[in-house]
């Protein structure tokens, strides 16, 4: 095995045809080149910019100490003024340095363009030959071509060790099945909804009496007891157990097969988590019973098992089977019967 040098490929494009290159135009002098007075003036301008910059920097320090950030966040002299003053003074201080330097370059530094020859990106033939010779000697001396056993076993070893970082990253998180826990409502397939768990209003946590809901009402709701959770557990349940409860005329509801008894007097309950990529759906149009996800505009018909009527979502919102308890409050008949939120491999049909 030895590597051979290659021929250079291609000349440069010939552009000086049909007209010959007239050559670089003659340099023209600037006013500041020929008039010492103008040059002095430009010098003063540049120095003026630098001086102005220093003044702005001092004003920046003044603003830093004069304007208070703190309790007066929305009054003049508070945070707004501080940010505006600091931004303006810092910006102008920097701009003055920049403008000064560029003015200096344009007016006073030589504006005579100079020429430099290019060289092809490839190295010279001698260099190539020398490098290739060195490379070939090196390869030869290593015996990598003559001893394929060494080469192949090394590649094999490196291939195996490359898996180490992947294995090492295994503890980034548990697998979905390790998390799955029906009792505690954990994992992709479960939430803390359970048979008999009350449906309570979001934020305030009060139970919802079926009779209190008017036709056309939409209530954001969560399972009772969710707010006893804290930190991560709370966030996880918020991200999948949140529901919307809607009341409509009972005869408008087209119950899905097997869902005939999932509504209570025209009250239906669906997951609030969009089946597209998981945004909480929020915009309800009571005349059509359509609910729209504000992220990507998937639209679901709540009167018809929350089927997708528009947009990129592919499956309907999971429905929570409802009933009422002895006191007339809405409760769940069970957990959701299918996973909530975006589709994923492993959820099945």
């Amino acid at each position, binding site marked *: 095995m030895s590597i051979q040098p290659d021929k250079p490929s291609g000349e*440069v*494009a010939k*552009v000086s045809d*049909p*007209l010959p*290159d*007239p050559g*670089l*135009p003659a340099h023209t002098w600037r006013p500041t080149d020929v008039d010492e007075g103008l040059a002095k003036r430009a010098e003063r301008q540049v120095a003026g910019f630098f001086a102005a910059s220093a003044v702005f920097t001092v004003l920046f320090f003044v603003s830093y100490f004069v*304007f208070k*950030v*703190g*309790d007066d966040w929305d009054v003049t002299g508070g945070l707004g003024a501080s940010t505006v003053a*600091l*931004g303006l003074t*810092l*910006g102008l*201080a*920097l*701009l*003055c*340095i*920049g403008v000064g*330097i560029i003015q200096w*370059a344009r007016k006073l530094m030589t504006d005579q*363009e*100079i*020429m*430099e020859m*290019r060289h092809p990106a490839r190295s010279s033939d001698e260099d190539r030959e020398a490098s290739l010779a060195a490379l070939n000697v090196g390869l030869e001396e290593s015996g990598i071509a003559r001893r394929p056993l060494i080469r192949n076993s090394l590649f094999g070893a490196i291939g195996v060790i490359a898996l180490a970082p992947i294995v090492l*990253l295994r503890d*980034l*998180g*548990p697998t979905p099945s390790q998390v799955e826990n029906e009792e505690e409502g954990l994992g*992709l397939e479960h939430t803390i909804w359970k048979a008999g768990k009350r449906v309570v209003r979001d934020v305030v946590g009060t139970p919802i009496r079926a009779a209190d809901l008017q036709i056309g009402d939409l209530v954001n709701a969560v399972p009772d007891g969710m707010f006893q959770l*804290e*930190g991560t557990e709370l*966030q*996880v349940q918020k*991200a999948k157990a949140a529901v919307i409860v809607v009341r409509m005329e009972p005869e408008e509801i087209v119950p899905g097969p097997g869902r005939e008894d999932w509504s209570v007097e025209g009250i239906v309950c669906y997951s609030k988590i969009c089946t*597209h*990529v*998981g945004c*909480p759906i929020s*915009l309800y149009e009571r005349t059509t019973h359509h609910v729209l996800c*504000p*992220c990507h505009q*998937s639209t679901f018909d709540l009167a018809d098992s929350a089927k*997708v009527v528009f*947009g*990129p*979502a*592919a499956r309907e919102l999971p429905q929570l089977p409802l009933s009422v308890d002895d006191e007339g409050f809405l409760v769940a008949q069970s957990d959701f019967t299918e996973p909530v*939120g*975006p*589709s*994923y*491999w*492993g959820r*099945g049909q």
Partner: protein
Amino acid sequence: MAATPKKPAKVGAVANWADERLGLGGAMKKNLRKVFPDHWSFMLGEIALWSFVVLLLTGVFLTLWFDPSMAEIEYQGSFDPLRGVEMSRSMASTLNISFDVRGGLLMRQMHHWAASIFIASMMIHMMRVYFTGAFRKPRELNWVIGCLLLLLGTLEGFTGYSLPDDLLSGTGVRAADGFLKATPVVGSYMSFFLFGGEFPGDSIIPRLYTIHILLIPGLLLGLIAAHMLLLVYHKHTQWPGPGRTEENVVGFPMLPVYAAKAGGFFFIVFGATAVMGGLLTINPVWKFGPYDPTKVTAGSQPDWYMGWPDGLLRIIPGWESTIFGEPISWNIMIPILIVPPLMLVILMLLPFIEAWITGDKREHHLLERPRNAPTRTAVMVSLMTFYGLAWAAGGNDLIAIRLDLSINQITYFMRVAIFLGPALAFYITRRWCISLQRHDENKLLHGYETGVIMRSPEGGYSERHLPISENAAYTLTARDREQAWTPSQKVDENGVAAPGGRLDGIRSKLSTLMYADNVQKPTAAELEEAHHHAEHEHALTAALDGHSADGHQFDGHHAVEGENLRGDH
């Protein structure tokens, strides 16, 4: 001069000390007076570079106070409306930076503005490089590096704006979780590993933080260094013109002019960012509030550079199919997992595809005007149209509200436009370029339009044309004469045609199509004939000489020294 005789000796001593240890003399000899050609469009990449420096500086400031933790605390800072609200420490520390650290909000806003400028200037710089053909040999690899920089810059932006853990960014992270889960087979595992368990968990912000302040900036720094080194090694491209050839580079020396202009420009970019940070609110997280998985605001948009995949995500129909009883979410995979990576690959391959079609193996250091490469220009405009439509689709809700249109109809329109638009843009751009080429050819052969209308004795009207200057004519012709690639060009030393590859037919057809209808520069004979013709015509109107129409001598094609309006006589 202020320099006393002592000073140079001191400078010399320092230089000697450094050179005896670092051997900088050799490198400096080559580079101190290195020539950089001048053109406003060469400044676009500089904006990107300097805004990256601003990002590093402001970013370091922010890390001093930012706490990338998802532990819940009750906010007790200065911002009244959120006092007492439960939020993560990252959100609370973001509010702290904004309201309790002097200059903190300024630095946050500068950081965010600089990020926008960084990505925007990279994109515009990339278009400049493409439209002028600066990506051609030997600069293809630098083009690829540039594409990677754009990708990394976008990811850096996404990881950055997700850190405050506010409602808007949390919604974005939630969508990202949905994207991961849409990956066949391993989707839910990827999601659980990234989030450290079930969404949202308490790991995602610290992990994004490490990626944002260490991993991606490190890669960006390395790639930017490589980008600059290659730029220096290849020497900058230049526009053709008198004295500017493929073999030379004409411009200002690194020291002092270029260093001063580029260095001064750093302060201008920095200063402009500071003024923007001080005056223009960006990402007011205190208005969005902390992330809550049950809440969302209408009109949620990602930062603008993430808008185009989001737009595709909005207009795709709800396609999902089943394999082995498991869902395949085409409605997410196509707009997020397939098309954006595909677009990036197409972008990276553009130089290689063009070189393959043209069969051009020469080095190119002279830039081409976009009109002189109609197909190339049309390809980029077509891609830009795709990008623009997808981006507009990402704001379909805002368009619907502002223009009082139906969101459904906008979406249906976009589903068609995303295919038709780029095709239409390709056709229009190509023909437009060719028209401009014809205009250039007319100028070369028949001169420029003077605006002087003449009436012949027969009563016919014609416009008088005058020849353009020698330099202008040279600049117009200083380009390549194109030749479609044909398989028979492959001939070995003995004059025997090499056996054609299977793709040769397609290649030569593409090459022919690529140059079809392009106007080639005139040959010497054509120019000669045109001049002859012009002289003949001029003879007919010779009587007009000396009676130039007033004002027309100031048409920008002549030196005007000594010209007087006739009224002065």
